[in-house]
């Protein structure tokens, strides 16, 4: 299994940086692709591979400036996967960053994270 997953970001897709040794998965930037499946399916398959090992530990760091609805769906899919692993005993944490000016984003994030059992923090950047 590869230790690192790195996907370069652009105007439309976020930068994805996953380090298996530190257990940090960072998704940052804008996510407004027409087909979010193409962007996020490597992340999901990577996570599934990652969780095959015992005693896994992951911190999901989200720094999303703008996110469209199909990407939101994919983030939810990731969160559902993390929650499943959390219930199985993995150490999971979510850190979701938002910009100070975007208060509606903060409300949306806390509302969404409130639905999951995973420990999470909402931070300003």
């Amino acid at each position, binding site marked *: 299994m590869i230790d690192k997953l790195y996907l370069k970001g652009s105007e439309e897709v976020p930068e994805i940086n996953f380090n298996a040794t530190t257990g940090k998965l960072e998704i940052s930037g804008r996510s407004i692709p027409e087909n979010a499946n193409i962007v996020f399916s490597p992340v999901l398959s990577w996570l599934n591979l990652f969780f095959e090992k015992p005693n896994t530990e992951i911190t999901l760091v989200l720094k999303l400036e703008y996110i469209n*609805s199909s990407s939101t*769906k994919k983030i939810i899919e990731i969160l*559902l996967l993390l929650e499943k692993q959390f219930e199985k005993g993995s150490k999971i944490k979510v850190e979701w960053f938002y910009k100070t000016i975007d208060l509606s984003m903060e409300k*949306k994030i806390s509302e969404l994270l409130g*639905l999951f059992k995973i420990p999470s923090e909402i931070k300003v950047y």
Partner: protein
Amino acid sequence: MKVLIGPLTKNIFFNTIFSLILAILLGIIDWYTGYEISFQFFYFIPLSIIAINDKQKKRYLIIWAFLIALCWFLADYYAGHSYSSTQLRIWNTASRFIVFISFVFLVNANVKSRNRIKLINTDLLRKDKLISDSVAYATNIQNSVIPDYKRFKEFFPKSFIFSKPKDVLSGDFFWSYTKDNKITMALADCTGHGIPGALLSVVGIILLNKVVIEKSIESPAEILTELNKELVDLFSTGNELIDDGMEMCVVFYDKNTEEMTIAQTTEGAIIFDDLGNFTTVNSDIFTIGGILSKHKKVRFSNHQFKIKKGATLYLFTDGYIDQFGSTANIKYGITKFENELKSLHKLTASEQLEILSNQHQQWKGNLNQTDDITVVGINV
């Protein structure tokens, strides 16, 4: 030329006979006029007639090139053209044979590919017609399941619906149901557009009829909750895992009490008062169907408004604000849209419709439409 040899190419028998006679005739003329005058060009005529038939076999093409070269050889020989050595005569004939063979193969390949393109085009046109015919008919079905706009118009005479599908069929739909002095309205945006969007929209309409009319549910939040339950149930019976769903805004309004209740899955409602102050209505995080609503317990909230005369309500799907355009190729955006509504909410319904349509067209320019568009404007 095409008119002349056109009919000849149709029938392989006449085609062959004609070319043969022509070749012999050319040989005789060439022999008669002597070797000093170059006659080569005319030998290409029977060759063209042969090569232009796209059913011609390769070996016949070679035989024909050989025949014509032989014709030329005989004419040259009997015209008394003398060469310093016999090898030169053979060399000249061979070089002509190669020129002829290249010619017939090139012409034949060209004709074949042109005919194939023609065939593909005809096939494409036929398929295109088939698809557009069935899409047009599907539009009829979609339109016939949506409740009559007449009742809605009677309830709100000063209203308009701006609807512009990305393709012919739309994934957006507007639904309404009136009873006495009460109206329930729903504006929905189904995942995707075109055929998949339209299929989902028909499901949405049927479920709305069930929940609002049969079960007589009035509370918008409760309507959304029920719709989600119905849709998730419906999709979990199949084998395929479907995470598709719809965004929806449900409005309930009672004319007697002037109370309006709104619940929605995404920001898609703005209310203007008589003075031009506007309120955007909050939305919930859940959609109808979709991955989150399938795995978590949904919760929708009602928002209450007192609607006085002169107030205007706008319901919209994200197609209008998500349209890419202008020179910078950026999205139209909510702020521009709010300002646009602010400037036109006092105008008549038909004027508003025209301005919205023109403004969209102007912004879009030559770019493709991003998504299905629906904007409903209601002057209460």
